[in-house]
């Protein structure tokens, strides 16, 4: 019994905190989704399915589709960039490795909004990047680098890259690189070794990185708001609009609940998988 008591003592503080400030609020959100909204901006009395039915409104489809493809594109791009980076970092000397890690993390330590805003400056119609592209004949005077889906994707990739690199790097560090030498001895080219030995070897890291980036992108709304145009709203923008502009808390909750369920599926799978593998 002493062991059980020890377990409870260690577990209770964080468990209690998270139940009160995480689990219960999540349930509350789902609950509010089943109440009617009232015009005064609060939550109405009684229970109803109307709010949830309102999710069936066709206007949400383009937004959900856009959210999904932007998040997927961000995830794939981040993985495509992070994999070769981690390959390189894991093979250089520890001094270089730490230096590179520092370089990657440093921008991360600056205020998020400011970094996004700096992109507005970089992509400005009269800014350096645009002028350089025009000079290189890659763009015309009228091309707009800002306020469109491309800008949103670029800034999404920019902000999510560190989240992809770090878990991949952690996995790459533990990878046994002698396996690659063995593959080469057996006649594989560098690229084949990369694809058939390295990538499967750090599979857990890749999955973790993919889930983190995907989930994080799905809920974004600040980036589309700042660098996006009129047709680039994501589901996060809709939730914010419902919660604040439209004074419709139940509908905001219903949307949040839908997003929560979408996000939960890959997350729980990862959590259970890693717990299982940790146990073995």
């Amino acid at each position: 019994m002493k062991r059980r008591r020890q377990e409870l003592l260690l577990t209770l503080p964080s468990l209690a905190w998270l139940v009160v400030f995480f689990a219960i609020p999540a349930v509350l959100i789902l609950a509010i989704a089943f109440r009617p909204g009232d015009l005064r901006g609060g939550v109405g009395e009684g229970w109803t399915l109307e709010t949830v039915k309102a999710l069936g409104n066709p206007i949400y489809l383009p937004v959900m589709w856009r959210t999904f493809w932007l998040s997927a594109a961000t995830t794939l791009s981040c993985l495509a960039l992070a994999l070769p980076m981690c390959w390189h970092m894991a093979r250089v000397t520890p001094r270089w490795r730490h230096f590179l890690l520092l370089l990657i993390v440093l921008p991360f330590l600056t205020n998020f909004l400011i970094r996004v805003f700096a992109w507005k400056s970089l992509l400005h119609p009269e800014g350096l990047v645009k002028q350089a592209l025009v000079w290189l004949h890659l763009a015309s005077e009228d091309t707009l680098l800002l306020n469109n889906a491309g800008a949103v994707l670029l800034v999404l990739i920019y902000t999510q890259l560190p989240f992809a690199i770090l878990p991949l790097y952690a996995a790459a560090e533990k990878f046994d690189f002698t396996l690659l030498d063995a593959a080469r001895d057996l006649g594989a080219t560098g690229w084949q070794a990369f694809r058939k030995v390295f990538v499967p070897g750090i599979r857990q890291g890749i999955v973790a990185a993919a889930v983190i980036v995907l989930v994080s992108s799905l809920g974004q709304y600040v980036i589309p708001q700042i660098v996006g145009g009129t047709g680039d709203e994501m589901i996060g923008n809709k939730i914010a609009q419902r919660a604040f502009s439209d004074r419709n808390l139940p509908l905001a909750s219903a949307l949040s609940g839908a997003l929560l369920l979408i996000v939960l599926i890959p997350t729980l799978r990862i959590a259970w998988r890693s717990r299982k593998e940790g146990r073995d």
Partner: protein
Amino acid sequence: MKFLIPLLLFTVSAFGAETLHVYTWADYVSPDVITKFERANDCKVVIDTFDSNETMYAKLKAGATGYDLIFPTSYMIQLMEQEGLLLDLDSARLSNLKFIDPDILTKVHDRTMKRSVPYTLGYAVIAYRKDKVKDPQPTWAMFDRADLSQRITLFDDMRETIGAALKFLGHSINTRDDAQLAAAKEVLLRWKKNAAKFDNEGYKAGLDSGEFRLVHGYSGDLFQVTQQNDKVGILIPREGVTASCDEMVIPKSSPQPALAHALINFLLDPKVAAENMEWMGYLCPNTEALKLVGKDFLENPAVTIPAEIKAKSEVIQDLGPDIAKYTKVWDAVKSE
């Protein structure tokens, strides 16, 4: 560590004095005016800003009870009153109420100033870059200009933007007619193709920097931009504009009602109001203060709009349950 000492002194001094919490729009009161008030009353004024009435209201309903003075737009006040959020004002402490222009009282919800006092009168208008826009015309039809495509912004505000389309079509901005709203929706979908984004605050910086060439903006904010950048001009659409009156209210939960009254009265003082007006660019409906401001301030079209356009202008009103019609139009415009 040079800044630590003044920082410490700053925070320590704040402990001794009383603090007044103000919740208002960005750039909406002159910092010099605030400093004068702080000195005269030995207090500290902390200003939090919101960028939409709805956000402010949501925050209040969610339990933000520490505010002493709030600056909502007139149509919001009806709602806040019904919710019992507002304190009855003590007119004995507001000797400067007499300077309020009686004409503005006909436009606002609370005509006797029982719970709200008018602060500014502003209009939603258009501004443009003189060096980038050829042949500017004072009409809402400017949003249809294909040569300005992707360099235009519209308000990210349901009532303001639908209102502009309604005015363009010659209807009232408070209409409940479904056919008129459907026509407005079509107009907005057309304008949306030309618009770079829907924006409520960033348009000022965007116009100033040349990112945008034509913006939908508030008269006072645009006035501020013209002060700093002479390449910016203002157009008052001849079909009429939306007028809004922002007012000062004290929430029932205010911890410092006496000090809040003092600030209201201070802002109504003609000299203070004149100085504040010229900094903000918005008109304060204060008869004495208007006599003290510079002539070129008064003649700026953003401040005093031509009488015939004023006659066609309307104030946004709360529409009760019919607001759902507008929400439907707005949702459709935003997602298609």
